[in-house]
């Protein structure tokens, strides 16, 4: 974690605001390539969120409800009362600017309103006007301003240029969680129906069908069957996964991105192979076509919606009668699980403290939630010598590791993924220290911003990460970026496709499965992607 600043360090903070002079007079521009399409009426209405209507952010008229000012006023008041952190974060910022140049969007875009301090100031200025005496009386001099439609548009523009990655928070001497300010800001915009469709669509689908894409249970099963055939082709092993099996000891929940989008699909095959391998050692696990989404785009609209979408995990665990839940490689899913699930939908007193049936290890960090991240589970297996691994099968890969924001800064998974990677491949190189671990740079497309229409924004946000990947590519010949987040796997191939096309993206469990040696398997000539294994190039 970041060092806590000493009092003498805090006292040295220069209180002169580093903020743009006259920033209040520079209206936000809604530019193509930067903004995402507005949430469609049908998707907003499907979950009962406010002001459903089709709208276009590029139009002058955003079709706001007539009493929109009152709605924001009450919404802000309500949240200031409910969340003390929000009130604190509105009050305590001294605008020291320590966060200013830490945001990937600021670094990549050069737009000063992407400095986290400025992004927060957009809200704070309105907060001051509405809720502080100085702001009410002194106005602009006290950094306060009235909420107008133009200001609202500025909010929307910049709140949807933040991926809630929390890198800036790491550098804040007061520990202000900027992601929480964005979360609150987005809650407020959602009160007026100002959402983006890339979030609203998945939320509506997830609420009804159980996953972002609206894939129905039979199609989910078809995908798993497809993976089973693929795995048999590569390894000669026919895995026999269970779906919706009552009485299993463990329920497995993973982001649907792993099941439906390359290259995440190879990671999903990796899970299937690992579970099959462990069956003989006593693993009793089932997938679910109902809890078929680990991700939670509701988290990008409101706490209430996030809670609602999250509820299916415990509900399905209860229905199936499992003892605990294992979760796949994902980022924001884990922020929700780790930091919110227990209080939103817990206590899950019908579940037990997770214990690995293979090694007997108690996962004490998951005592509250009863849900374990698969990277921790696998690291424990390797540490207890329960996996026969041949890392040379990954010798065609020169690997680096991208710490996903939510698992590194949000959960502290810094060593586990590295431990697993170093056991399943022989060539591993770190990116520079100020771009990894707690200081990791965001993929640039998180928190629902991985739409297609905002491609330029995504490339700007992805620049600092890709820049570090480029460095290790040039210095060590790195050709594979590994990660433990489904969203990373969905968006980093695109970002690297623009900045460093020589580097591909993989989940850690894809590499685990490629290295995993089964009893009685046929000699493998290819990896899960169908690419020849090192030394097997002539076998094709």
């Amino acid at each position, binding site marked *: 974690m970041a060092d806590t600043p000493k009092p003498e360090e805090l006292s040295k903070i220069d209180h002169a605001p580093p903020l*743009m002079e006259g920033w209040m007079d520079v209206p936000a521009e809604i530019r193509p390539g930067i903004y995402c399409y507005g949430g469609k009426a049908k998707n907003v209405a499907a979950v009962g969120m406010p002001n459903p209507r089709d709208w276009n952010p590029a139009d002058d008229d955003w079709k706001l409800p007539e009493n929109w000012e009152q709605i924001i006023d009450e919404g802000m008041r309500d949240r200031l009362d409910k969340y003390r952190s929000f009130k604190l974060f509105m009050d305590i910022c001294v605008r020291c600017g320590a966060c200013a140049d830490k945001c990937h969007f600021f670094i990549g*875009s*050069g737009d000063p309103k992407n400095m986290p301090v400025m992004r927060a100031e957009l809200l704070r200025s309105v907060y001051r006007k509405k809720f502080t005496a100085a702001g009410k009386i002194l106005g602009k001099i006290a950094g306060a301003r009235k909420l107008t439609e133009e200001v609202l548009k500025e909010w929307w523009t910049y709140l949807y240029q933040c991926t809630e990655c929390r890198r800036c928070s790491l550098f804040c001497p007061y520990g202000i969680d900027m992601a929480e300010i964005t979360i609150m800001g987005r809650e407020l915009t959602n009160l007026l129906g100002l959402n983006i469709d890339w979030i609203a669509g998945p939320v509506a689908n997830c609420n009804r069908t159980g996953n972002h894409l609206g894939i129905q249970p039979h199609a989910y099963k078809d995908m798993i069957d497809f993976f089973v055939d693929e795995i048999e082709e590569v390894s000669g092993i026919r895995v026999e996964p269970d779906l919706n099996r009552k009485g299993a000891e463990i329920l497995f929940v993973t982001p649907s991105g792993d099941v*439906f*989008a390359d290259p995440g699909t190879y990671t999903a095959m990796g899970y299937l192979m690992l579970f099959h391998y462990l069956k003989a050692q006593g693993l009793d696990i089932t997938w679910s076509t109902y809890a078929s989404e680990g991700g939670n785009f509701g988290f990008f609209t409101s706490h209430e919606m996030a809670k609602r979408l999250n509820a299916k995990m415990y509900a399905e665990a209860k229905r199936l009668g499992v003892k605990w839940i294992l979760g796949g490689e994902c980022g924001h899913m884990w922020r929700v699980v780790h930091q919110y699930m227990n209080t939103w939908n817990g206590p899950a007193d019908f579940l037990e403290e997770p214990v690995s049936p293979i090694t007997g290890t108690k996962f004490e960090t998951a005592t509250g939630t009863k849900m374990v991240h698969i990277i921790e589970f696998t690291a424990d297996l390797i540490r207890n010598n329960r996996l026969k691994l041949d890392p040379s099968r990954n010798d065609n890969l020169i690997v680096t590791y991208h710490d996903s924001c939510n698992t590194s800064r949000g959960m502290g998974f810094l060593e586990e993924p590295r431990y697993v990677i170093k056991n399943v491949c022989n060539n591993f190189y770190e990116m520079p220290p100020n771009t990894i671990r707690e200081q990791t740079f965001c993929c640039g497309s998180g928190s629902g911003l991985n739409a297609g229409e905002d491609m330029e924004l995504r490339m700007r946000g992805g620049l600092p990460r890709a*820049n570090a990947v480029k460095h290790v590519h040039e210095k060590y010949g790195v050709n594979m970026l590994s990660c433990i987040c489904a969203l990373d796997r969905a968006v980093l191939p695109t970002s690297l496709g623009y900045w460093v096309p020589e580097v591909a993206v993989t989940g850690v469990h894809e590499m685990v499965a490629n290295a995993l040696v089964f009893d009685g398997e046929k000699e493998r000539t290819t990896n899960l992607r169908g690419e020849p294994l090192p030394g097997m190039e002539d076998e094709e």
Partner: protein
Amino acid sequence: MSLNGLLLDKRSSIIKKWRDLVISTYPIDTQRFLKREKDRFSNPVGQTIAEDLEILYDQLIKDNDIDQISRSLDNIVRIRAVQDFKPSAAVGFVLALKRLIRKEIGVDTGQGETKDDMEALEERIEAAALLAFDIYAGCKKKLYELRVIEATNQVSSLLERANLKVEIPEFDPVL
């Protein structure tokens, strides 16, 4: 002194002014950061501008290695192609070097060998500007390609794997 001698003599001054000119295309509050932060991982935009303009200058005034010029132009233009610049502003910095050099060396380049050298240099700069435009267009094309690839991947493989479509195989199965 020959033109080349002058250009070497004024090298750091011209490069600094060229860098300042590129950085001045960003908002004032961003300019401070782009100049101040020297770590290339904390400040990829500022450091790319600083490093690659220096390389470009040296290549344009003497070595003229097209690959190196392309690489450095690509590094800068690839960034500016996704920032808030019109196409002309994204690549215009290359042509600005002509003006800077004329102003900075401040000698009569109107005749003889110096004039020929100057014309040759300006031609190289103009060629580099056209190259920058090619790179800019390539970057934009790449963005659209990536967008199409993402969309296709999402829909196509899904339909196939869910057995909702069966396409003609590459080769007819042997009957």
